[in-house]
């Protein structure tokens, strides 16, 4: 069994770092909040991509749909959506504290559940696709979602929806959303950590290694696939809602469905840290985001080319990622060894 054997102090240290960060670097609170979203992105992508071998290029769909659901609930609770969006963001909804948080929480709840259900539904048409077809199919889903929301006038079409204004000071808003992102990432990580310790964890590994064999052994493959994707979608939906509110504005191409930025980042981060491991995506996300945020401006317009090169180099030369490399280098540390302590008594039952 693969219960995670990380010493508890690592987790505690991580928690403390997350709690201390906004006090140590108050100027970068937004970037650190996004770091937590990135961690959540990588960890949830890895459920399907790393542990189950279903490499999705379209997980960003749930981020965007979650953002729209949250936004529509927040707006729809207090005014008519159609006329509001047709004003093209000319006016923003102003609410009091109670109404704002009521709308936000209801929106996030709707987004999480809605996205989880959506994942199950889309999954029924996509899970028959294997390997690269699944990747292309999910990419198609994400692009379709972007086009769909871009042409849907009721939700604002290409020009989007302005979300309710935060009823307080901007600093207070950053704080609130920092804590929400932080809690979300920790919850996602702990939930996934627990998942991998159950039968579910091994079953999705089995699907990755040989799905035909898993079927021949009677594993409920569709059930596992549906659940895996809906877990990802659940957290992605919430993160979309949070990110939309942090931006204050939902728009299909750049904010809700950033297919080639966030959508690819989550894959790149998991690969960098080592896909198919619990800690790999976390390490990858932190490394990727910190390096990106600190060096981005020095590339003088070449940053996107650098990103492409990083993806290529990562995939071609360092596919096992940091954790994968460690396991290869020190297999005994991870319990991969011949046990010569003698055979058991008993033999056949």
């Amino acid at each position, binding site marked *: 069994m693969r219960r995670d054997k990380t010493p508890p102090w690592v987790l505690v240290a991580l928690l403390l770092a997350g709690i201390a960060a906004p006090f140590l670097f108050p100027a970068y609170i937004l970037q650190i909040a996004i770091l937590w979203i990135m961690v959540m992105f990588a960890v949830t992508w890895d459920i399907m991509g790393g542990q189950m071998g279903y490499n999705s290029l379209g997980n960003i769909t749930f981020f965007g749909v979650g953002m729209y659901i949250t936004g529509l609930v927040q707006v729809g609770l207090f005014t008519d959506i159609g006329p509001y969006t047709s004003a093209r963001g000319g006016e923003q909804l102003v609410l009091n504290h109670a109404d704002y948080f009521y709308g936000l929480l209801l929106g996030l709840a709707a987004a999480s559940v809605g996205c989880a259900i959506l994942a199950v539904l889309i999954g029924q048409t996509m899970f028959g696709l294997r390997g690269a077809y699944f990747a292309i199919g999910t990419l198609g889903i994400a692009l379709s979602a972007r086009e769909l929301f871009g042409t849907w006038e009721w939700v604002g079409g290409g020009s989007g929806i302005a979300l309710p204004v935060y009823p307080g000071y901007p600093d207070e808003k950053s704080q609130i959303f920092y804590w929400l992102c932080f809690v979300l990432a920790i919850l996602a990580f702990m939930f996934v950590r627990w998942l991998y310790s159950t039968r579910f964890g091994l079953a999705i590994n089995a699907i990755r290694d*040989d799905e035909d064999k898993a079927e021949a052994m009677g594993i409920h493959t569709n059930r596992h696939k549906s659940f895996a994707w809906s877990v990802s979608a659940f957290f992605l939906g919430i993160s979309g809602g949070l990110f939309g509110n942090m931006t204050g504005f939902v728009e299909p191409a750049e904010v809700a469905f950033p297919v080639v930025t966030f959508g690819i980042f989550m894959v790149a981060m998991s690969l960098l840290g080592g896909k198919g491991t619990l800690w790999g995506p976390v390490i990858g996300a932190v490394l990727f985001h910190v390096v990106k945020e600190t060096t981005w401006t020095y590339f003088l317009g070449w940053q996107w080319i650098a990103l492409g090169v990083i993806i290529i180099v990562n995939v071609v030369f360092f596919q096992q990622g940091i954790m994968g490399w460690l396991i290869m280098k020190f297999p005994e540390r991870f319990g991969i060894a*011949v046990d010569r302590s003698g055979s058991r008594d008993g033999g056949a039952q």
Partner: protein
Amino acid sequence: MTVKSIEVRGVSKAYGGVIANREISLEVEEGSITGLIGPNGSGKTTLFNSIVGYHPIDEGEILFEGQPIQKLKVQKIARLGLLRTFQQTRIYSKMNCVDNMLISIPHRTAGWRDMLTPYSADDLDRAKNLLEFVGLYEKRNLISGELSFGQQKLLEFAMALMNRPKVLLLDEPTAGINPTLINGLIDRLLLANSEFGITLFVIEHNMRVIMNLAEKVYCLAHGELLAAGPPNEIQNDQRVIDAYLGAH
């Protein structure tokens, strides 16, 4: 009266224009060890695949414990307790042996909630016992893809036993196994049958193995059933000898 475990009635299967199985009928009795032989390309594996629901059949009927299963899918059939191993051994090559065993626990009654429970100590114990049974206990923490071919084959067999099947369809269990180990494997197959009460249906090329194992042998040639009977009878059947010696 003997109870029929698997009944195949008039099953035909064609790939494009090639007829792989033509109106095959046979029976596997509960608790028995039944052999299936035939030259290469005679349709043995196709028949196995039809029985376990790997592909739809064109005609005929397949019954498992009296229940028609030809419309069911692979997983459903496996959960009924009808399991197969593959000719090209298939294991979960990136996991260690113990995990390979644990994942193979029966899923007959597994509900949604079982998915999220950990494995019981009992499961772990059984996994280790069965690894001991096939002689892989020492290698239990190694990644299974790095085992030798023969060891992988043994692991696959142990995984099948872990699943507590009622019937096990074995596709060439001794192919690629070191001849000195074959006797040990035969013993284990017989034990699986007598101790665990698993009905075995075995494709085998090695005549010595099938003579030692099976109580009844079916012989296929050109996709049709050629002969059936006890092994020594089949061995001396002129039609079978002709088929094997390439009189076609």
